[in-house]
Structure formats: structure tokens, C-alpha cells
């Protein structure tokens, strides 16, 4: 069964992203939204953790939340796909369940 995980907290402020990565299974999808989008940026203290997790999970980040925070899509970690709101909806339909890491 495949799960879509959403993470909406900054990895610098909470351990939501680290916990999600630790407790998710191979083949899942992780979508970073709201303050969670900072976890998608390259060159941060958390980039290596995310890059390492990408061998087991597909990563996505919500474009409008990146733009709101002045985070350039060009600096998103390679391999993380930027999606819009309809892409978010598509992800929810493609997976059996959705788990929000609040």
C-alpha cells in the first residue's frame, strides 16, 4: 500500500520531516508544504538527510509555498519535483492513503 506523506513544518524547527523519513516505507511519496518547503532546499544542514531518503521515497514540494517564501525552484534539491495545487490533488488520488505529519 502506498502512502502520501505531507510535512508542513520547517525541519529546523521541528523533527516532523526526520520522523516522517524514519517511519515511512519504501515506495512512498513525501510532499513538503507550507514551512515544510525549507526541507526541499539544497545547501542546508538538512539537505543530506533528504537526499539520502530519496532512494526510498519520491519527494515533492509545493511551488506556491516556495514562491511565497522567496525560495527559488532552481535551488530545490535535484530529484525533488515541484508541483502546484492540482499536482497535490493528483498525488492524493495516486496513493491509497494520506498521512499528515503535523
Amino acid at each position, binding site marked *: 500500500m502506498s502512502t502520501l506523506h505531507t510535512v508542513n513544518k520547517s525541519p*529546523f524547527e521541528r523533527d516532523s520531516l526526520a520522523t516522517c523519513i524514519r517511519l515511512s516505507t519504501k515506495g512512498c511519496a513525501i510532499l513538503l508544504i507550507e514551512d515544510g518547503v525549507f526541507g526541499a532546499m539544497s545547501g542546508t544542514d538538512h539537505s543530506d538527510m533528504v537526499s539520502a531518503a530519496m532512494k526510498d521515497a519520491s519527494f515533492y514540494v509545493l511551488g506556491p509555498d516556495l514562491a*511565497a517564501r522567496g525560495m527559488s525552484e532552481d535551488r530545490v534539491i535535484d530529484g525533488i519535483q515541484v508541483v502546484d495545487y492540482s499536482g497535490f490533488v493528483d498525488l492524493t488520488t495516486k496513493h491509497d492513503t494520506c498521512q499528515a505529519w503535523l
Partner: protein
Amino acid sequence: MSTKKFMFLNRKAPYGTVYALESLEVVLIGAAFEQDVSLAFVGDGVYQITKGQSTDGIGMKNFSPTFKALGDYEITKLYVEKESLEARGLTLDDLMELTWEDEDDDWAEKPSIRLVSSEELAAVFDEQDVVLSF
């Protein structure tokens, strides 16, 4: 009335929570009382003053341009912790250009952002009468 040193400590990213906007509102209210006000951006607080914020897609007000008005309220000291920027892969170039005009220097435009180390920022905190945490 005696002048006190007020420091607004900003540690939260904008938009995800209301702290950043609330802090800015209080800063602007406080400006009316002619106190010695400075701001510090630490941790995720540094994200509040990034360049190029565009909130059209999330249906929220982009309040980042308001930081550009602080100079007109004689709020000219915005301390940014260097270690916080580095942990986030950011540099000064990723932040807005925030300036103030020095009336004692023929209205020369001067930068408001002061990039400081943790140690330097600790010394600035030590000088404050009041620290307001957001």
C-alpha cells in the same frame, strides 16, 4: 520619558504561523513611542526577509515589503545571525536590500541589515532593556 532599548527577536518563518506578521505589527506600533528599537533575525526568522517573496499562489498578504518601511520609522538596526543563514544555505545576497537614510550624513542611504556572529549578537542582547520574543 526615558528611552529604553527594545529588541524584537524573530525566530519563525513567515506565513506558516502568524508570529512573523504579529511581530512586525508590534514593531510598527512601538515605533510611535520613540524608543531605541532593533530587530534580530535568528533561526527560521531569517526567512522573513528573503528576497522575491510572492504570495499570489497561497492567498495571503505578502508583508515583506513592510520591512523596507522600517527605516522611515527610524528603525535602522536589523541584526541577522550569520550562523542561521549558513545553516540554511543562504547568504546576504538572498535577503532584501533594506536601507535607511541618515539625516546626520546628508541623507546618505545606509544598509539596515547587520550580519553578526552568534557571539556578537549575544553581546547586543546583553545591552537590551527589553527583549520581545516572536
